[in-house]
C-alpha cells in the first residue's frame, strides 16, 4: 500500500506544471509562482497527516496552492502603497483586452472556478472538493461568473 508521502510526492512531481500554472494565474510572476508552489509542496508534505483520503490528494494539494496564491496576493496588495505601482497597473490594464482584463479582475473564488473548469478541465465534483463548497454552490458561482464576463459557455 502506497504511503501518503509517496502519493503526495508523486502528484507534486507529476502535476507540477498544473500547480505552477494555477499559481501563476493569480500572481503573474515566475519567481512568485515558483515560491508559491514550493511553499505549497512544503506544507503538503509537512501536514501530510491532514490528508484524510489519499485518493483526493490532487484536489487537496490544489487547495493548498490556491490558498497560498490568494494569501500572497492579499499580502502584496497590503504592501502596495507606492503610486508608481498603481500607475503601472493602470497602464497594464488598458493594454489588456476587455475579456482578459475582466478575468484578471475577478474575485479569487470566481477566478478559481474559471481556471479549474475551463483551463484545467476539472470536473465540477473535483472543483467542489478543491473549493470545499457544495456542488450547487460551484455550479451557481460558475454560472454567475460567466454572466459577469458576458460569456456564453456551458457550465
Amino acid at each position, binding site marked *: *500500500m*502506497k504511503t501518503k*508521502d509517496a502519493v503526495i*510526492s508523486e502528484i*507534486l*512531481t507529476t502535476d*507540477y*506544471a498544473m500547480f*505552477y*500554472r494555477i499559481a*501563476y*494565474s493569480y500572481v503573474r510572476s*515566475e519567481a512568485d509562482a*515558483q515560491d508559491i*508552489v*514550493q*511553499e505549497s*509542496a*512544503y*506544507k*503538503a*508534505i*509537512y501536514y*501530510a497527516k491532514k490528508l*484524510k*483520503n*489519499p485518493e483526493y490528494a490532487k484536489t487537496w494539494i490544489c487547495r493548498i496552492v490556491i490558498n497560498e496564491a490568494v494569501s500572497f496576493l492579499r499580502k502584496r496588495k497590503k504592501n502596495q502603497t507606492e503610486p508608481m505601482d498603481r500607475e503601472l497597473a493602470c497602464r497594464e490594464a488598458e493594454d489588456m*483586452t476587455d*475579456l*482578459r482584463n475582466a*478575468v484578471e479582475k475577478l474575485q479569487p473564488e470566481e477566478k478559481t472556478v474559471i*481556471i479549474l473548469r*475551463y*483551463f484545467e478541465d476539472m470536473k465540477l465534483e473535483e472543483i467542489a472538493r478543491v473549493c470545499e463548497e457544495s456542488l450547487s454552490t460551484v455550479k451557481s458561482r460558475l454560472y454567475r461568473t460567466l454572466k459577469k464576463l458576458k*460569456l456564453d*459557455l456551458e457550465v
Partner: protein
Amino acid sequence: MTEWEQIKKEYREIPIPTDGPHQMLEVMASAKRKRDQWKRVVKCGSGVAAALLVVILLPGIVFFNSGFGESKDMAAPETLFDSAESTGSSDGWFFATEAGTAEENKAEAPQSTASSEVDCDGAMNNVGSSAPVLENSAEDFSLCIENISAEILRQMETRMQENGETYYIKSELYPEGFEKISEEQNYYVNEDELYVIVFEAGTVAPEAMGVIEFIIPAEVAVP
C-alpha cells in the same frame, strides 16, 4: 480564434521554469525531515519522561511504606540519600536506578517503540488466543511481518464475510489495497501480551469505520 480561446491558449502555454520541480523536491525533503524530527523527539521524550516519572515516584513509595514499619525502617530512605551524597552523585534520581530498581522501572515503561498509541480501548474482537509467550521487541516484530500480514488478510476476509464490512485489499482492480505491513506499521502490545496492529481511519477501510485494529494470536506472531 475567439478571444476566449486565445485566453485559454495563453494559459496552457504559460512557460514552466525548468528547475522548478527539482527545487521543489529539495523543499519536500526538508519538510519531511522537519516533520519527522518532532516524531523522534516526542518518542524519546515520552520514553525518558516515563522512566523519570517512575524513578521520581519510587523513592516516594518506599518512604511511604517504611512509614508503617519499625523505626529502623525509617533509616532506609535516609540511607538512599546518604549514599547519593557519598558517591558524589548530585542527581539522586540516577542513584535510585543504581539501587537495583531498574528492572521494575523497565517493566512499567511502555513496551512498543514503534507506536505512539498505547491507550486504545482494549481488544475489539478476541480471536481466542492461547497463553502467549512473546518477547516484545522491535526486532521480533519485523521478523513476524510476513505471518502477521497473512493473518491480517485472513481476518479481513472473515470480517467481510461475517460482518459485511469493507476492507481495501490489494487486487488488480485496487492496486493500492493492503498487501502486507511494513516495519513502520503502528502497533501496540495489549494486556494479553499480543500484538495489536493499528491502522489509521481511511487507510485499509472506509474512513467511517474509524481506526482499525487486528489482534494477532500468539501462534501467528513467530518468525
